[in-house]
């Protein structure tokens, strides 16, 4: 798996400056472009960016492949939506918390079974369990609305320390909330990846057998990595339903899962920010191309094949390549 690794470790001051510039631009975006369609589009990029980043924790840092990480976004979203509809229509933070907690509670036994079976079966099982969640959501008509989707989720006000910042139904306010949470999750994940814990995950990615022969309980750490990735996916799901106000099982389908995988591939595994960029590119292309062609699947398939064959490190790989090219 050594091809996936980015060797950069030190935090260059320029990186911090670049990060600040990007965040500032993103913050100003809804005030410059006021069309609510584009605000929503970038919001979706951020949310899927968070999901792709969480998949990167699994794929790029732990070396585990999850075909249907979107299932956990879906679970988080359904839980938050159902919480807002049936339990407390106005408590946004409680709903988000419930989303993360329930997603984790569901992900735990699934992860436990998956890590016991080894690397390849793990990947196949993510697909099978993903399909199971998809089937359940789609069949449990009375709770989830089945194929008709969960509609009419209330838009609670966003309150921090008792101060109301605005309604989550307002695209701009919701956008800023997403940006804020995605940014926090990014920093948190960055910290975790560079901690001793992150080092263990990397060791497992590099050589699972060796990892267990230096005394690492591989299954347990894989499960920790899985749980963290699923929690982040749960957060992204919460944001998703808050921004959309509705969700359907399609979000949890295998095809949507391939999309998330493609975001990580396009951006490049093992960099955290790469997949976020990948999500941006993917969602932009999806919006742009699906209006032009009905053969969207052909396109997705071709791009995935090309990426694996010629650009296995994605967007960052391209960046590295260009830098090297210039030096030569």
């Amino acid at each position, binding site marked *: *798996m050594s*091809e*996936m690794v980015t060797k950069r470790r030190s935090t260059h001051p320029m990186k911090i400056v670049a990060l600040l510039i990007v965040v500032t631009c993103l913050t100003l975006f809804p005030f410059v472009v006021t069309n609510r369609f584009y605000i929503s589009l970038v919001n979706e990029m951020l949310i899927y960016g968070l999901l792709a980043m969480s998949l990167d924790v699994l*794929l790029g840092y732990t*070396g585990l*492949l999850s*075909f249907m990480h979107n299932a956990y976004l879906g679970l988080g979203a359904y839980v938050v939506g159902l919480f807002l509809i049936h339990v407390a229509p106005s408590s946004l933070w409680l709903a988000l918390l419930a989303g993360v907690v329930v997603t984790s509670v569901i992900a735990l*036994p*699934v992860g*436990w*079974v998956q890590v*016991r*079976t*080894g*690397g*390849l*079966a793990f*990947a*196949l*099982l993510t*697909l*099978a*369990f993903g*399909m*199971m969640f998809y*089937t*359940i959501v789609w*069949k449990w008509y009375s709770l989830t609305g089945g194929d008709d989707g969960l509609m009419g989720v209330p838009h609670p006000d966003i309150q921090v320390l008792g101060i109301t910042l605005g309604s989550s139904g307002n695209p701009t306010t919701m956008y800023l909330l997403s940006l804020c949470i995605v940014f926090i999750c990014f920093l948190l994940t960055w910290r975790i990846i560079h901690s001793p814990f992150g080092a263990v995950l990397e060791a497992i990615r590099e050589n699972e057998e060796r990892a267990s022969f230096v005394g690492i309980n591989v299954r347990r750490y894989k499960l920790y990595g899985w749980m963290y990735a699923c929690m982040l996916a749960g957060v992204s799901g919460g944001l998703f339903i808050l921004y959309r106000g509705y969700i359907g099982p399609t979000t949890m389908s*295998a*095809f949507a899962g*391939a999309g998330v*995988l*493609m975001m990580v*591939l396009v951006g490049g595994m093992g960099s955290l920010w790469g997949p976020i960029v990948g999500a941006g590119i993917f969602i932009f292309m999806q919006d742009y191309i699906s209006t032009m062609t009905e*053969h*969207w*699947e*052909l*396109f*997705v*398939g*071709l*791009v*995935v*094949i090309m*990426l*694996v*064959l010629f650009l*296995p490190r994605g967007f960052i790989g391209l960046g590295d390549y260009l830098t090297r090219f210039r030096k030569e």
Partner: protein
Amino acid sequence: MSFTAIAVDIILNSLVLGGVLLIVAIGLNIIYGLSRVMNLAHGSLYALGAYAGFTLVASGLNYFAALLVAPLLIAVVGLIIERVIIVPVRKRSIVYTLILTYGLMFFLDGLIKYFWGNEPRFIELPQFMRQTLPIAGTHYPVFRLVTLLTTAVAMIGLMLFLGKTKLGIILRAASSIPEMVSCMGINMTFVHAGAFALGCVLAGIAGVISGPLYTIDPIMGHEMLISSFVVIVIGGLGSLRGAVLAAFLIGLVQTLAEFFVTDLAMVIVYMMMALILAFMPRGLLGEGRFE
């Protein structure tokens, strides 16, 4: 309708379902066992087989002739795929093969949609197969029985091929001790390509027989792919006997579930898989040899 008649119906239905699952899953398992490639596009090759069968029959070929020709066409497609896009990633981590074949799956589905469109297709059967046969108080379609027979013939053929022919023995030896085979001077390139072609032949057969059984549509392979995963994961990765056991187990459970609880049939199958794996992480008959 009497109890026996219902029971016969259910048993035959589950055998037919299990048989189709088995042919697809065992093809996937052979490719994995012999060449260490988990081909996620296998379901799409199965769909392609069905479409090939449809086109052949629609252009006037006899159904049984199509049953022979279509799998060979799929084998050719499979060989091209193996040579052109799988060989370059063979040396890389299995994660890349998985992602690559996942992309291939969507590409093939898109291609099918492009050439054959979205509308459902049916393979026209010869008249004698459109009858029903009275068995134990129920009327069972002849072509379903023919399907069962085809499954059995394909499986016996496969067993004879792997067990009795020189080619089959080489392939099997390669799966358990690849080092030894390359020592013996057998070309691994040939083994890999052969395994892929064999798997594709099986996918093609399954495609043609499920044409009249279900409907042919561009995404028919997705569900089949997931089901065959369930089969080989429950049976044990790389274990052929495990796949046989698991396929018929799933066929039976799914048919019973559809008959009695209808709504949650697939969920019950997945739950059964989770339970089996919780206690036997390597599946029913998996030795973990291929891990």
